[in-house]
């Protein structure tokens, strides 16, 4: 999987409890050179998923800076989720689940460990976000808000080059 250049855009529809959520997803690069452009993707977002790599401690370290940036510049009711990717590589794990969970709880973020390779927990992640969204603001009662823009920050892929 090569690193994202700029940002890619896709849409996805999820139905939960007879409510339809239409996601507009931005998959943006976490690379430093694009950092200045990041606000244009998360501005006004209903939710943000910050993805890190459980096999790389350094990627979890930069989750922290992204989180504080989202808290500072994002809207206050943006739901923030952390996704610990590559959970299929348990043997190479560097970031412990309980550490990540403790960190997420302290910062009011959700945590799900996923695998882009096996698709594990990805549907669950979106379900979880949908559930939270319908409880936070009543989307169903206001059809004009049905279109939810979700911005996904793929965390820096700095060292990917060397590992794959």
């Amino acid at each position, binding site marked *: 999987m090569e*690193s994202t*250049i700029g940002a*890619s*855009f896709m849409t996805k529809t999820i139905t939960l409890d007879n409510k339809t959520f239409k996601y507009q997803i931005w998959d943006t*690069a976490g*690379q*430093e050179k694009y950092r200045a*452009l990041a606000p244009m993707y998360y501005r006004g977002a209903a939710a943000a998923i910050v993805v890190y790599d459980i096999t790389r401690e350094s990627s979890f370290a930069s989750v922290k800076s992204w989180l504080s940036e989202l808290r500072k510049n994002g809207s206050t009711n943006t739901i923030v989720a952390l996704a610990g990717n590559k959970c299929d590589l348990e043997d190479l794990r560097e970031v412990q689940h309980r550490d990540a969970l403790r960190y997420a709880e302290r910062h009011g973020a959700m945590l799900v460990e996923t695998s882009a390779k096996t698709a594990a927990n990805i549907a669950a992640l979106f379900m979880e976000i949908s559930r939270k969204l319908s409880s936070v603001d009543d989307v169903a009662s206001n059809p004009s808000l049905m279109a939810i823009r979700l911005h996904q920050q793929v965390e820096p892929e700095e060292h990917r080059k060397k590992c794959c």
Partner: protein
Amino acid sequence: MATANKVADATTEEEDTRAGGEGNETVPVVLQGEEPGACRTSSMLVASDSFVDLELCVEEANGRGNVSDASSEAEVFRDRVPSGPIEEITRLDGLTVSNDVQPSTECSNGTTPSAEVTTEDSGSEQPVTEKVTLVRTPSLEEEEPDYTHSAEWRAHRKHVFILSSAGKPIYSRYGDEDRIVTMVGLMQALVSVIQSRQDSLRCIVVGQHKFVFLVREHLILVGVVSSHESCQQMLLQLNYVYSQLLSVLTYSQLVRIFKHRRNYDLRRMLTGAEKFFSNLLDLMDYDPSFLLGAVRCLPLDTAVRDVVAQSIAQHAKVKDLVFAILIAEGQLITLVRMKKYFLHPHDLHLIFNLVGASESFKSAESWTPICLPRFDSSGYLHAHISYLDEHCRTCLLLLSVDRDVFFTLSDCKHKIEQRLRKYNCLKAISKAIDTEMTYCVSDTDITELRHFLYKSKSTAQFTCPEYEAPYSGASERAHIFGLYQFMHQRLHSAARPLKILYYVGAKEALLGWTTSGFELYAVFGPLVTKNTAINSVNKLLKWIKKEEDRLFILNSPTF
């Protein structure tokens, strides 16, 4: 590659005398504006000659850093290097530099060691540039020795390095940058020693090897090549690498970074961009676009091309949309531009490289910042990039200066796609890509001709047939590209430019011809005589003229 070398080397000397200048009397005059592929209205691309363009670029850069005057400029562009500087370099190398830049035994603790490079006449005057900082950690060095000791690494035909003016490695075509720090330090030292004498280092020739240097603000680019490529051609490639870097960062960002921190490790900003450099360097090893400074068009029926251009022009009328470009397999299908603005072929090559090097555009619509240095090196354009067909071959790029128009452009894309489907244009394009429509050299009915390149100067476009036997394999393709490089160099040599060149090598006869309107490079079998070659070329020109509407984009649609 060995074969290409042999042709060039074995026969250059004796062929030299009868090669150039001759044969003018047998060549008919082609009036400018009448040559095949001459542009009819204004060209959508900036007409350019790769070397002239390069020279301007280098002069401009040197203007910033007050280096030598025009006459010495021309001197350095010649293929051989004046003997004076070389002796000087060798002497310096032997006396001081090499001794001082290898303090590896002293690197025993975790602190960053630095080596002072001293030369007779510098020292205190330029303390900053003379300081080589070694970022390598000692433990790493013990495990992974410097590449300079690796025969495998040294055997690569062409190395390209980018380093900062402070002597930090930024990019190496082969291997890990951390393992070339010593060598990079030496390169920086060489450049700064020459700079301290108000001169600039251009190239060092040692036997088969050429070391070519391109010094830019805050950056030094070095190419090391062991083949027939001329210094000028290598310089041209380094300039493309430099542009590629600007295309990722912009010139303003580059200057800002180094203004704050001279010692910055630029690799941090270039993560993910390594593939653009390596793809670009690979392309330049066989694609003549860069050498010619021209763009290859996909041969297509004018009717189809017009419909495509109209569909784009009508459905992409968006404020601040500067260029809409449709490409397939590294060839241009159409370019619609905002009135007043033109695209430089150099920039278009970077766009081709961006698309060619990235798989991620195939999975979803993308919104990517890209800087086109010849268009505006200080800022980004924002590119909406998407493929129009399910096989991901036809790629549409919509370039705007406004970074908030993704959804508007996404709508445009869908309208354009619908329209192209409705008129069967996508089918026609995919047919054209499938070589049903692309042509072979046999289509010209000139039996002696094996392959050719034809560049129309006024439109900055070129055309060539498919590479067929005997040039279909990778090494044969590299061989024929070497022949084209050889001809190009002979015709454009600053010391002795030629208008026409007939040359017989071991495996083929070559004819190169340049006029004010076109450049033509033709490859024949080795037994073809000069007269036959010239007659064939005349026939070829007629054929291209007949086909010009299909082979070139002669109008220039605007929004």
